[in-house]
């Protein structure tokens, strides 16, 4: 694990990330591993537990002022449920929080999710370092956006 790598980009304020499983899905092995790994890599991690609604996910992300939301589903409902999160973000005008996906997402769905602004979309077996690098670069983009807004 590359703990603290690139943290200088974040001016002493570590990456803050919300982890959520927004559908009706109890497969939490992956998200629990990632929560620990992200924490070990120096991120501030919020895990909202199982069964939050898309509304709750977006509310929490906005209230907690996170850099990124990481969504995980392994029940095949990502095209419906991830989209709801993305749509809510759009309708509320939130554009400085990155939305990153993961789970059992078929190749064919990835471009469609990208189009909704959901990046990553990693499957089982992806090295944690790959996921952390992706989050770090997306979070850096968001920080730049936030700096411009201020």
């Amino acid at each position, binding site marked *: *694990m590359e703990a603290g790598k690139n943290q200088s980009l974040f001016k002493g304020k570590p990456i803050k990330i919300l982890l959520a499983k927004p*559908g*009706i*899905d*109890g*497969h*939490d*092995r992956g998200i*629990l*591993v990632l*929560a*620990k*790994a992200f*924490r070990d890599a120096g991120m501030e*991690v919020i*895990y909202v*537990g*199982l*069964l939050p*609604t898309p509304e709750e996910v977006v509310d929490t992300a906005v209230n907690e002022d996170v850099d990124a939301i990481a969504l995980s589903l392994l*029940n*095949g*409902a990502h*095209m*419906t*449920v991830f989209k709801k999160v993305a749509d809510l973000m759009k309708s509320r005008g939130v554009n400085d929080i990155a939305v990153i996906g993961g789970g*059992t997402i*078929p*190749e064919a769905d990835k471009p469609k999710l990208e189009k909704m602004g959901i990046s990553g979309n990693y*499957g*089982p*077996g992806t*090295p*944690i*370092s790959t996921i952390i690098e992706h989050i770090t670069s997306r979070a850096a983009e968001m920080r730049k956006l936030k700096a411009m807004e201020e």
Partner: protein
Amino acid sequence: MEKKDSYWSERYKELKDQNHRQNTDFDAWAEGTLKPWNQKTGYQEREFTNSSNIPIKEIYSSKDIPEDTEKRLLGLPGKFPFTRGIYPNMYRGRLWTMRMFSGFGTPEDTNKRLKYLIKHGESGLSIAFDMPTLYGFDCDNPRSDGEIGKCGVNVSSLKDMEVIFNGIDLSKVSTSMTINAPAAILTAMYIAIGKKQGVPLDQLAGTVQADILKEYIAQKEWIYPPEAHLRLIRDMMVYCTENTPKWNYISISGYHIREAGSSAVQELAFTLADGFYYVEMGKKAGLDVDEFAPRLSFFFNSSINFFEEIAKLRAARRIWARVLMEKYGAKKDRTLLLRFHTQTSGYTLTWQQPLNNVIRTTIEALAAVLGGTQSLHTNSYDEAWALPSEEAVKIALRTQQIIAEETGVIDTADPLGGSYYVEWLTNRMEEEAFRYFDQIERMGGILEAVKAGYIQKEIAATSYRRQIRLEEGKEIMVGVNKHVEEGEQPLNILRISKKAQKNQLERLSEVKSRRDEVKVSQALEELEAAMREEDENTMPYILKAVEAYATLEEISNVGRKVFGSWKEPVIV
């Protein structure tokens, strides 16, 4: 707080003493033969441990197991403590049941599939439900959008079950339903259909999973707090023992515990601890252990560390028999038998180089057979990503048929019995399980340990350790972190169309428009009153609500109102 039971700590100490005696033969050999050899060949020291983090030695001999192993720890098949198998002739007499789990799309799809299976001689039906059904949500709940029919069939009301079993005579089949939180409701629906068909209740045969403890531990599909679900399961146990003696109301499942990331020993210990809890619950409800415990069956995982899995299954049988006899006062042999279904590990499957999964599944299936399983589901090679294709399911079934018909492993019971390594490992798995039983007792029992998040944290720690070891290359998955092929793309997969959702929404709205609303609200009110009375058995009230076409969610909502919902303890 009850007084702590010293049974577990005493047994644990006994096993520790038994298993950790010095082996002077080994020590002399390691010093005089192994060490010089390693030095000469430049052998690199590395850790050899299994999933349970038990260190493995270079070689095992008779000195590593107790002298009275055969007499005291093994016995013969069909005899206490059943380490070598539960039946005297094992697979010669009765081959394991090749039970392939299925269920998808609409009730009509599932009905068609069930009839197809019956036509081809299958009498053991097995049904998977979709996520909304498992969580007690109807198809018209906004939360169910996009999830209908995805991981199994959707059931929102009795009408759906009527379609699933349309034209199927319930007196001629046995039905296994993989359902937990709403198990009482689905059982009531099954009974309602039986009644409509005129089948006597004592003829209704089948199984519901209904192992709610493992839901909080691993699969995470609950509706209410644990005590509420346990109370409803108690009601079902009592009702079924009296009315539907062929209905297996709990299948105690380690499968999901393992898939959630546990080690083999954790799967063994937590599953049996759940089992002991249900035994205590039945006894507390006034049932005779020899009457209800034989209705309890188990469901284990078979993963990729071959000997560890075999040892786990052998240890499970011995522990169950011993504890049921010594601690719970079982008198009949039948009560002591640990009967179990096994499924090969989904977690070990990879989307990379998918045909490799056929090999993994074969090895895991063989371990289950050598471990003495009563029934077996083999995973399909394309299952890392989604529901399996027909061709892949066929190969998975053929894998079992080849093991059964070609290899000769069924010719004799427990062919690995007496292997120094297997016996030593069986003893060590048993000891480590008792270490957990002792720890759980110290925490006030399995329910308290689960509510405190202890069990979940133990599993999460194992799963994290495994992931880090994979990333560091200390554990290998071929095609994932070794022997990788660049530029691979996942297979095409089976997709469920949105048709299922539309179909279900239409039927539910028809059910709601046709039913007698007065009858529905009356039944739900009576159920609420029954739920509020701890000593009342809720089953007859659930049955009445189901028969009035109250929906799955409406019935679940009564419980939500009475018992509240559940927020899991912090695990990470």
